[in-house]
């Protein structure tokens, strides 16, 4: 249970692009071939290590369907990272990225780290969006980019970990006031407490010391 940091993630993107599958692959190392439409949000968690520090990821997988937007938006503000997913075999999911991004910019905190994922790269023969286009979009909007496959697990670990590494780096650089939990970051044992000294985390109460 003890972690140096806890990061909250959200996964967003059109319905059917494979958000739930990415989460399942990451937490359970399984692939789910049938589309179980997500209703509202679902939760998953996993521990990873960055810079030799245990980091807990709390991940909320949101429903891509339009009708759930008002619910899923409630999760934007408190998230430290977002995986924005499209399906490389369906052009329209790529075309919608701009509107997802706009939503995120409007409701999330400005420091949220966004990872753009072109999913289903195992289906190369049905590709409708080129890798370069993905890269280009990411560059234009200041996102990290990766193509991945929830089916073959290619780049799935990497995507979650790279996002965490980026957040971690931002903490090291002092971008966040990590004592403010509204950034979606919590300090546990051995994490660097924020400038005001993280008074109300459970770990602080237990008297964690920096190692």
């Amino acid at each position: 249970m003890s972690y140096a940091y806890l990061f909250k993630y959200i996964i967003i993107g059109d319905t059917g692009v494979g958000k739930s599958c990415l989460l399942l692959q990451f937490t359970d190392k399984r692939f789910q071939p049938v589309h179980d439409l997500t209703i509202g949000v679902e939760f998953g968690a996993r521990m990873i290590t960055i810079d030799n520090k245990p980091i807990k990821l709390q991940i909320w997988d949101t429903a891509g369907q339009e009708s759930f937007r008002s619910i899923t938006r409630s999760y934007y503000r408190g998230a430290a990272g977002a995986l924005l997913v499209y399906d490389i075999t369906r052009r329209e999911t790529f075309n919608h990225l701009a509107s997802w991004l706009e939503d995120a910019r409007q409701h999330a905190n400005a420091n949220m780290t966004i990872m753009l994922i072109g999913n289903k790269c195992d289906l190369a023969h049905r590709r409708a969006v080129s890798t370069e286009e993905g890269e280009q979009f990411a560059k234009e909007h200041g996102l990290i980019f990766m193509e991945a496959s929830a089916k073959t697990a290619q780049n799935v670990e990497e995507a979650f970990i790279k996002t965490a590494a980026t957040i971690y780096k931002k903490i090291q650089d002092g971008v966040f006031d990590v004592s403010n939990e509204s950034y979606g970051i919590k300090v546990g044992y051995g994490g660097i407490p924020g400038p005001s000294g993280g008074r109300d985390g459970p770990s602080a109460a237990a008297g964690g010391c920096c190692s």
Partner: protein
Amino acid sequence: MRMDLMSGYKGVVGLLVGNENSSNEDRYVERLLDRISNGKLPDDRRNAIAELQGVVSESQPFQLAFGAMGFPIMLSVLKEERDDVEMVRGALETLVSALTPINHAKGSSNEVQPALMNTDLLSREADCISLLLSLLEEDDFYVRYYTLQILTALLTNSPQRLQEAILTIPRGITRLMDMLMDREVIRNEALLLLTHLTREAEEIQKIVVFEGAFEKIFSIVREEGNSDGGVVVQDCLELLNNLLRSNSSNQVLLRETVGLDSLILILKLRGSSFTFNQQKTINLLSALETIKLLLKGGSESDPGKDMNKQANKTTLVQKKVLEHLLILGVESQWVPVAIRCAAMQCIGDLIVGDSKNRDLLASKVLGEEPQVEPALNSILRILLRTSNMQEFLAADYMFKSFCEKNADGQSMLASTLIPQPYSANHAFLEEDVSMSFGSMLLQSLTLGENGDLETSCRAASVLSHILKDNLQCKERVLRIEIEAAPMQSLGAPEPLMHRMVKYLAIASSMKSQVGKSSTSENSYVQAIILKLLITWLADCPSAVNCFLDARPHLTYLLELVSNLSETVCIRGFAAVVLGECVIYNKSTDSGKDAFAIVDAISQKIGLSSYFLKFDEMQKSSIFVSVKSSLTYQSFTRSSASSMVDIEDVDENDLSEKKNLDHPILSSILDSNFVNLVKSLEADIREQIVEVFSRPKTKVAVVPAELEQRSGESDGEYIKRLKAFVEKQCSEIQDVVHRNATLAEDLAKTGSTLQPEQRVGGASDRIQIETLRRDLQEASQRLEKLKEERAKVESEAIHYRNLAGKMEADLRSLSDAYNSLEQSNLQLENEVKALKKEGHSTFPDVEAIKSEAREEAQKESEGELNDLLVCLGQEQSKVDKLSARLLELGEDVDKLLEGIGDDAGAAGGAEDEEDDE
């Protein structure tokens, strides 16, 4: 404007108050509202609002009058006068007063309750919720405080509307969560509000947890001193339970990222304070409820429930929950009985179907050296000795959970059942920790001898758990013989089972002696012993044999089945035992084989009347309620205090209902047992038919035997044939006799039952079954239709939005077109002016001018073309969308009407010209 509005409301008020003319209250409130909205002097307006608040808080008619016209005015104060804290406070306080019920001594319940009506009215005001939520960010303490109170009032009366509204407001829940970090008064108010908000609203529960609710709840609980804290701790735990109930996602989060330490900490009894005030009891009960929810794993329909449950169990056990539960439920006799029961039930939930946890429990020893004993023994002692029915039930549940599908555990317990010499039995259950489980149980089983049927039947309940589905244990316990008491000198040792039947008989006879006053108590003694017999005999021919060894048993059972002074349930159970004597009968003794039993049934009871007992039992309220059981009462602030005082079931309630079963039966008869009885019934019916369709073994008709054997003299042959004929004759007599009984039975049923009733049973059931299936199908179809409708509706909304966007595009295009024309005109004017000027000064200007005009025209023409293309595209889009909307059942004309109004100012002008 506002005055108009109010006169419109007057009619409504008139109706509600019940007189035509507006009342004094109406006029008074109206005047105050007028001063508030139209007053010029700030002080005067403030006074007016204070006065209004005063009257509204005092009487229902004023509440009613205010509700009918005041809301828009108050809301506009809140919206537009944010800077005037005093006005805002005044408006909020007035709203609080309008929503707070005023108790009228004489007010009857069917009168309109103005506060409720006002809550409804306010919750319908557009944007009211987002306005209120925004007020939570104000600095003024009272503003936040009153706002929370208003929200709570709205939530109490129209929870769904508010829950839906809050989900659509960005950061709405975040703002409420922030209130948990506010100062104490606000924090407590916010806790209550969140508790209401999260009740049965899964999405809200998840968002609240996303916002860090668990950490905040536990930090408040810790600050307040865990279980020693006040009502705030109770509120926190109620919120916690709302977040976990039927929500496995939140359970995972709690377990995986927040941890269960803080929860376990609440269960820990601190220091030497052995005193439990009511609040502490409730706090602990709430925390035990949390444990129970975690042990349930989520809602019944959740496919991930079982995995989650298992993970919760594992984590809880790692955190030493069992030790804490044992302290609360078993070891500490000063703990209030309600807590002891809840803790024991949790132990049951923890071990059921989990071999590791069962072994863990079995290995626990309690007490301090040298007074240590196995935990199971302590629990058995509680079960046998408690004066509280609920505690008996909780301990019984624990043993049931321990024995369920646990053959090894059953054998372990059964192996200690070793009869002691009679003399040792005298020390009744003293705190003798050296006594084995089995001796304690056996001793209690036989206490019926001293007239203590109650203890005896409690022990019988435990024994039935040990025997359930375990042939080996059944056989083993069959061999147990009990010595007769020394003073009853002629008694030889008799089987334990016979003792139990004897107590059953004593219980019945005591009942008929004492009369109706103690009916119910003995009826559960009987029911429990009968349940033991049913469990024992099931699938166990040697048990049947042992039972039938004593002739009077059968007679007694036959009597019990037809004894009308017994409850339906007792008669039914007795019928089941009889049936087991048929289907599990391997005996070949003519007196006690299956034939004999069936004959006895058909002669003494009559077959149809016998089967009727099953029907009656299945229809009895107890059976019906067991089937639909497992509706847990949730633990809320309102129900808390009543749950604290667990006492025996209300006795007054019982005395009058003479033919009803004891309420504890519904706890004893779990669904497993009900299912067992049901499947037995089917087997019994089948077996009885089978018995009737075969000849008895007496006469074997082998044609070869009818021939004269070689070497057989005629005399011998005739003798043999005669004997054979005699046997056959008696067989025929038997059959005729049986036939007569059956015919009589048939004739009797025929005369007592109305034709349609007779058809009843089977065909009725079939009909009900088909009806039920139809209903199910219909409701599924309805569900599907609803889904479809929602989809279509959301599509319609989507298209309507699109149409709106199109309309806006169209408008901006037409604006662009207008401005283009404008500039064109200007250009032309400029050119004209230039031309004039040029005429006088430069003769060459004509050429420049025409060139310029040409260019300008070309340019604007190009743009115009683009525009027209655009317009065309838009139009075709609109057409397409209209068609789609029409398909979806939208009124397209009505929609487009709106568009025409504001978009087509130019078009409108043209139309007018056309009209002229």
